[in-house]
């Protein structure tokens, strides 16, 4: 059966059944079943039906497996319920049917190119990225979601699964390389365009194919459990904005690494690394992984993200537990480095062993490619192939399938069938010799009616009808509403429309725009381009505008323009240079600040990433623009775009005398220069340095290396420090310029600002003070901050604005007064400590960590970079790699740090 509703059609349009006036369900089926290739029809009818076509065969087609072809040909409806491929062998006696299917298969494989399909490495770590792509870029608009993700209710999930173009037996059907080829350019192999291109990169297509064929991974493990030592790595030169970039890039080089090692290739500059393979887990049990990186990294096990430290940051460590079975587990680690120093290490602990680096002996990788499930070696048989060619000709397969060199024949013309609608392929019991489609009674009835009235189809559809028909055939309604029909909210698939990252844009950021009157909004050339080639003007939207190819684009674009034409459309004004200049002013900081939301070429906006101003003039018609700006929500309900001309009155009265029309026209004039237009003010993002002059300057904010409650202090001596008020420790020392706060003073203030200047000293992370019964004991972790055991108490400023920090460590109050002293070449920070209160156990201060050499009494050299001098009553000691000093309570001492 083709499905419950006459127009619910397994191979094409799916979940909405809009029936705009002017065409019928039967007409839709006539086109989808490709009826007019046999039953010839006049050009006017053929044009109106816009038939679906069938996959290209032969050398230009895809190589699917012979095993699948045999099953498919013998019983298409059995292999895929509701398929548009009819059963052509039903008239062949059952005993002979297998043989015929076999000879047809031999014929088809005899046409295949001699080159084998490209091998795709079996890489379980790609499954997760493929899964994410599948569920976010638009596949789920037509196909069933595979996994019910967090936030999707069982009802919504089942509803979406119940109406979907099926994905059947892909793992037995496709060599992975062929599926990749198909995904990269589906319209080439299936010109009907019902499966459009989603503009995948090769990496994405490979991930997606690996996901869709994930059963082949399980199979390969069964067939070749032995994998070889080491991890595969790919090296990507250049800057990364986040781990998501790995999906978009092609590796610069690749190879095998013994273990996770960021220096596996050592080259200067920014880079990304992806390690992939298998982690051999020694025994069943609880494991804990801890990943430490600078900058971003992500760890995946068995396709699931276990640890995520994405983003640019100083060395940051995160841990996660995992309960694992002994044996192989898919492993993938992503890492990238942007500027400054870098670090990457991965440790684990598990049954019987404590925290350690994962040894090389635990890593393996697959050296064999993916193979279709159940595939057996096939010998070509020219005799059978010749028989197959005869069958192919006799069954008239060539009428639908191009590319075999077989000449099709035609049947009775469509317009002569009106008296025969109970016969042939439409008979209740289809006679031998006619193809048997898997039709419901309702569908057959709809077809009969359409065939009886076929003469009417010579009448062209109205433009609006053409649009509705095409949007139904191509399933545009799955993503877009038009005139109140369709769209994700109606289809129940809205949960699979997402934003990329966190664009604070609401539904506008994730749901594709409605298409009501879109022909009066977008310029024809732009419509053509976006339908044909896809576009990416909404970078925040995860779902991609698919590419349907030039043929569909030309027809739909013309129909949209005609259907949506407005009699009262205003003629586009001729832009003058003066207007452009005033428009520039309006767009920028000194006007309406459009750039607070809209991006421009490579400039990010200062807030949300709304559509680029540089593409507006290419995309939009003037008449729409002039109607949109005074009341955006009228044309796009729910939009975040505010108007700057409420009720038609300009809020900015300084430019062009506050004349609404003139202002809108001026902005339009500026937009005409597209990406070449003068950059609006407010976008040039300069350095915003806090300059330290005669007085000390304090800066509390997110400071890289000093935490979310950091206090930066810049002294007139050009010594700078950052105190971490979360961990109650001096975190950083540096010389020269204090800090550039432009990250915080522009946009929304996103991220950690690193110190400016040079000669940076990074002091140990974790608590600076600890109470220890045993002076040699391992340095403990800090107590939970919210417990209030240790607390930051604040600071006082002296007349030169220099701070004295106060904080409490258990029962001890610490007053720390850092004062810089400029030397000839070095700088010294004299840290005066005063302790009051009581301590129930001896208290220690950890001053530094690393290679430490003791000098004169109380003097130490840390890593040849930092000299420490302690004048306290006790004795400073090196414990392991740490320099610890005893704390007198009550009491005081000076600690000099010279660097």
């Amino acid at each position, binding site marked *: 059966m083709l499905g419950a509703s006459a127009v619910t059609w397994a191979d094409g349009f799916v979940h909405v059944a809009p029936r705009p006036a002017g065409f019928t369900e039967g007409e839709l089926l006539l086109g989808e079943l490709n009826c007019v290739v046999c039953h010839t029809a006049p050009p006017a009818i053929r044009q109106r039906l816009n038939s679906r076509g069938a996959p290209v065969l032969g050398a230009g087609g895809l190589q699917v497996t012979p095993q699948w072809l045999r099953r498919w040909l013998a019983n298409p409806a059995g292999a895929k319920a509701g398929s548009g491929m009819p059963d052509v062998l039903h008239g062949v006696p059952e005993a002979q049917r297998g043989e015929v299917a076999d000879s047809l298969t031999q014929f088809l494989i005899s046409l295949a190119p001699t080159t084998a399909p490209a091998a795709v490495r079996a890489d379980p770590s790609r499954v997760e990225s493929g899964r994410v792509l599948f569920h976010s870029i638009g596949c789920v608009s037509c196909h069933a979601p595979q996994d019910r993700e967090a936030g999707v209710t069982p009802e919504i999930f089942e509803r979406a699964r119940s109406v979907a173009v099926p994905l059947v037996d892909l793992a037995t059907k496709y060599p992975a390389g062929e599926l990749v080829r198909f995904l990269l350019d589906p319209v080439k192999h299936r010109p009907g365009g019902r499966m459009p291109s989603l503009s995948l990169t090769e990496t994405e297509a490979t991930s997606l194919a690996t996901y869709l064929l994930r059963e082949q991974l399980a199979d390969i493990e069964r067939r070749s459990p032995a994998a070889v030592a080491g991890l595969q790595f790919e090296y990507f030169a250049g800057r990364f904005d986040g781990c998501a970039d790995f999906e978009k890039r092609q590796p610069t080089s690749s190879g095998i690494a013994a273990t996770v090692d960021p220096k596996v290739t050592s080259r200067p500059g920014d880079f990304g690394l992806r390690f992939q393979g298998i982690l051999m887990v020694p025994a069943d049990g609880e494991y804990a992984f801890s990943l430490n990186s600078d900058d971003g990294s992500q760890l995946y096990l068995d396709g699931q993200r276990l640890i995520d430290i994405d983003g640019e940051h100083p060395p940051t460590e995160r841990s996660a537990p995992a309960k694992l079975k002994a044996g192989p587990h898919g492993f993938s680690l992503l890492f990238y480095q942007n500027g400054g120093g870098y670090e990457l290490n991965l440790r684990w602990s598990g049954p019987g062993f404590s925290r350690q680096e994962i040894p090389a002996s635990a890593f393996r990788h697959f050296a064999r490619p993916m193979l279709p499930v159940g595939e057996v070696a096939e010998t070509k048989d020219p005799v059978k192939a010749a028989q197959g060619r005869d069958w192919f000709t006799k069954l008239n397969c060539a009428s639908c399938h191009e590319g075999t060199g077989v000449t099709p024949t035609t049947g009775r013309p469509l317009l002569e069938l009106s008296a025969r609608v109970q016969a042939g392929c439409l008979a209740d019991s289809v006679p031998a010799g006619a193809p048997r489609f898997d039709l419901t009674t309702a569908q057959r009835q709809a077809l009969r009616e359409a065939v009886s009235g076929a003469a009417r189809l010579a009448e062209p559809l109205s433009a609006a009808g053409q649009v509705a028909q095409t949007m139904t055939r191509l399933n545009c309604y799955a993503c877009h509403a038009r005139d109140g029909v369709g769209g994700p909210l109606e289809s129940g698939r809205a949960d699979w429309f997402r934003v990329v990252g966190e664009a604070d844009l609401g539904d506008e950021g994730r749901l594709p725009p409605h298409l009501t009157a879109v022909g009066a909004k977008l310029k024809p050339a732009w419509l053509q381009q976006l339908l044909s080639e896809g576009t990416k003007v909404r970078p925040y939207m995860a779902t991609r505008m698919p590419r349907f190819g030039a043929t569909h684009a030309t027809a739909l674009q013309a129909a949209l323009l005609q259907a949506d034409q407005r009699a009262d459309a205003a003629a586009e004004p001729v832009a003058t240079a003066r207007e452009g200049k005033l428009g520039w002013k309006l767009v920028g900081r000194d006007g309406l600040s459009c750039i607070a939301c809209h991006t421009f070429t490579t400039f990010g906006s200062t807030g949300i990433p709304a559509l680029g101003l540089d593409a507006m003039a290419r995309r939009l018609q003037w008449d729409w623009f002039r109607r949109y700006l005074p009341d955006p929500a009228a044309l796009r309900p729910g939009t975040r775009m505010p108007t700057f001309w409420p009720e038609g009155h300009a809020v900015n009265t300084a430019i062009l005398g506050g004349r609404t029309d003139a202002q809108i026209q001026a902005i339009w004039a500026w937009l005409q220069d597209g990406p070449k237009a003068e950059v609006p003010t407010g976008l040039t993002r300069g350095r915003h340095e806090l300059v330290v002059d005669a007085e000390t300057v304090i800066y509390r904010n997110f400071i890289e290396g000093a935490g979310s409650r950091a206090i930066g202090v810049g002294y007139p001596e050009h010594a700078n420090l950052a105190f971490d008020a979360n961990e109650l420790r001096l975190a950083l020392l540096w010389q020269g310029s204090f800090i550039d*706060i432009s990250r915080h003073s522009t946009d929304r203030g996103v991220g950690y600002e690193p110190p400016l200047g040079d000669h940076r000293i990074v002091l140990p992370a974790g608590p600076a003070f600890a109470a220890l019964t045993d002076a040699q004991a391992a340095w403990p972790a800090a107590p939970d901050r919210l417990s209030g055991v240790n607390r930051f108490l604040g600071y006082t400023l002296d007349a030169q604005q220099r701070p004295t920090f106060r904080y409490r460590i258990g029962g001890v109050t610490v007053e720390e007064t850092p004062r810089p002293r400029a030397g000839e070449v070095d700088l010294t920070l004299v840290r005066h400590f005063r302790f009051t209160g009581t301590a129930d156990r001896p208290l220690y201060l950890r001053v530094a960590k690393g290679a430490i050499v003791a000098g004169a009494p109380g003097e130490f050299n840390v890593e040849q970079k930092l000299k420490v001098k302690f004048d306290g009553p006790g004795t400073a000691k090196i414990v392991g790699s740490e320099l610890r000093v005893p704390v007198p309570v009550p009491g005081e001492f000076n600690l000099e740090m010279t660097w």
Partner: protein
Amino acid sequence: MFRMTVLFRVMTLALTALTAAVSVSAATLAEREAEYYPLTTLPIPEGVVLEAGSIAVLPSQRLAVSTRLGDIYFVDGAFAPKPEHPKFTRFAAGLHEVLGVFQGRDGWFYATQRGEITRIKDTNGDDRADVFETFADGWGIGGDYHEYAFGSKPDRDGNIWVVLCLTGSFTSENEFRGWGLRVTPEGRVIPSTSGVRSPGGIATNHLGDMFYTDNQGPWNGTCWLKPLVPGGFVGNPSGFKWYSHATNLGAAPREPASNSRIATERAKMKEFVPPAIGFPYNKMGQSASGIANDFTGGKFGPFTNQLFVGDQTWSTVMRVFLEKVNGVYQGACFPFREGLASGTLSLEFASEGVLFAGGTDRGWGARGGQPFALQRLGWSGRTPFEIHEMRARSDGFELTFTQPVDATAAADLKSYTFENYTYIYQSNYGSPEVDRAKPPIEAVTVALDGLSVRLRVQLTPGHIHELKLPGVRSRTGDSLLHPVGYYWLNEIPSATP
């Protein structure tokens, strides 16, 4: 299908409104508003970036204004009739995005930074702070820009409330993100209200009850004014994991169902404190922000004890009438003043009868267009013809007006349009208007003094009731300055005997 139909109906309505608006000429709305509430812009000296996060009125007509870049300025001369050179003195600097400041009775300044409330004092009388004491820091912060902290002025018990934005729009990654915390006068932090998403301002009403604005996003179909009640849940469950740290409150409530309605989920959760006011998205504004109560006893015109709420995107000030029905806050919002210079963020009344408004558009665009601004709204002494109060009754609404209405026009059913709708209560971002209904106004009764009108119309709990009064005239023939009110209804009052 239904939803889309609704959307398109909205679109058609809006188009009609636009067409109508274009034919209006002469004075703009802002110009007409200015006849009653003139706006004065305070010049800001070169070099001062006054992205005003909070305003406090100090003795001797001095203001303290805290900024997003971490300064606290004293401003003298802000009350001058034509302030040409108000004096700015930098009291404190280098703080972390101060979105709450006031001077306590103890003389200390209390400043809410992202990471803590700090007590600040100038001990040597040079108008520069020299002591900074951490007063309360019992919440987490991880470096995400979205993790803002808005601090209130003291409530009637002397507590400071802090409302903490979620980490990003959707999650709570650090302790008490998505909560309202109370800080006692001793500095003790009491986790009090869960369900916060993205506040834009916080203040008490005239009774000392605390309210905050929460912005459209996940679980917020539109922007709201919400009451902060200890033990309550105000709508967004992302921060539920921190109930484990809130030992005073017990276990987390069961999570509300997504794709539901506020009224439905409220009925299932005893902790659910529903919003008090809904600001319909794209009708009243797009980003509700600062709150101020008119405590001036008539010096600011007829709206004593009503709340004034900013909208950052629209650069406006809105007006709010609140009432309590069956112990639950609800009420109506009205447009009040548009045309502010930047995106309205902070609002503060002074007893002289002026309302100060601080603005910024950094990171979030605003109509006003200025990067930042400090302005003053005063009352000209002329009373605008406005809806004064809009109260729910058992069988409809009672409206009072600032001037007597023309009885004939006010008694005419055709002088009104009425509809109601609500929003999907969902984990997804925002919502279209849904469940729209247009029950007829069955009867209108005009009081003899012309100062009030009773409308008999069906009420729907959990809906915005949008009432427009295009035909209502004052006895002197004026139209209402703002002929619309949006009443969010939680409870229907019982009939008064």
